[in-house]
């Protein structure tokens, strides 16, 4: 049995953690807002795919073109994230920030059966972030000749951070879901903007820090849009109904 290379183990654990945090954030967000069963199934399927990919391709994984993958997934996150972003803004502007907490479902169009949309969201988040982890594993493993230690470091990262993410479930479900939908939408379009832009060759100011300022920008825009949407709703009611508008119909 090969000895554990502590240096490689710690390096891959820490390097992987940066990506795994993003992976877990997506899985927990999808689980809390849509369906835990679908989200965890998507994550499990994604992890299974990654294990198969690592076993089958090994060092050849470094040749997988990440940029086209980032473009496709970034574009899809932009379009789907925009739907959550819009719905969150519209509902918060209509019902207020505390609406949707407790047992109420966030998405009125949730299917009766298995939530395939939640499954795909979670699956994509895990496979994209996981592919980066896999590349880290292969790169470290190849450089140090210690694939086992590199894979163990990444697996430990997934287990530790995954457990932390699931432990925060109770806190996450207490958050009002209309507001959460708004913030998750902002998060999805943040990653979508970053990955799609990066794949096109955009030089983001601050490099990886662009994720932070893009997220702040989208959240700030959402807060402004919540205020504006409330005003638009009142204006439209006044224009169309005049003095006969029902009392208290708009907040």
């Amino acid at each position, binding site marked *: 049995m090969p000895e554990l290379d502590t240096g490689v183990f710690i390096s891959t654990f820490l390097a992987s953690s940066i990506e795994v945090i993003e992976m877990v954030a997506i899985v927990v967000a999808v689980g809390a807002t849509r369906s835990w069963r679908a989200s965890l199934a998507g994550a499990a399927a994604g992890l299974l795919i990654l294990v198969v990919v690592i076993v089958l391709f090994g060092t050849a994984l470094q040749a997988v073109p990440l940029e086209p993958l980032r473009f496709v997934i970034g574009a899809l996150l932009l379009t789907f994230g925009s739907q959550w972003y819009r719905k969150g803004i519209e509902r918060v502007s209509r019902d207020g920030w505390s609406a949707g907490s407790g047992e109420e479902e966030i998405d009125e169009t949730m299917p009766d059966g298995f939530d395939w*949309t939640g499954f795909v969201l979670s699956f994509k988040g895990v496979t994209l972030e996981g592919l980066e982890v896999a590349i880290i594993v292969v790169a470290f493993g190849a450089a140090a000749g210690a694939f086992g230690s590199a894979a163990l470091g990444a697996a430990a990262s997934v287990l530790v951070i995954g457990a932390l993410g699931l432990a925060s479930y109770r806190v996450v479900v207490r958050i009002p879901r209309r507001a959460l939908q708004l913030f998750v939408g902002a998060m999805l379009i943040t990653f979508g903007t970053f990955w799609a832009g990066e794949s096109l060759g955009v030089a983001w100011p601050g490099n990886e820090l662009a994720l932070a300022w893009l997220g702040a920008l989208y959240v700030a825009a959402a807060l402004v849009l919540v205020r504006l949407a409330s005003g638009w709703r009142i204006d439209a009611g006044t224009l169309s109904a005049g003095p006969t508008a029902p009392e208290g119909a708009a907040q």
Partner: protein
Amino acid sequence: MTTLVRWVRAFFAFWKGYIFGDDWTVAAAIAGGLVATWLLVEAGLPAWWLLPVVVIGANARSIHRSVTAERREDSTPR
């Protein structure tokens, strides 16, 4: 055969909903924004500002259309 056709239809309906949702103009604006970003990058011009502007602008326009239509429907005397 019928099951296969149903499965294929469901597959495309899923992706249509996933990409376009309830407002196809947002997806179209994002597609246009991606093309314009690529053109700016190819021209050697700063392109980082364009996608956020397109995404926020397209969503703002969609929200405006949606809430005003919703409010007018609510206020219409029956």
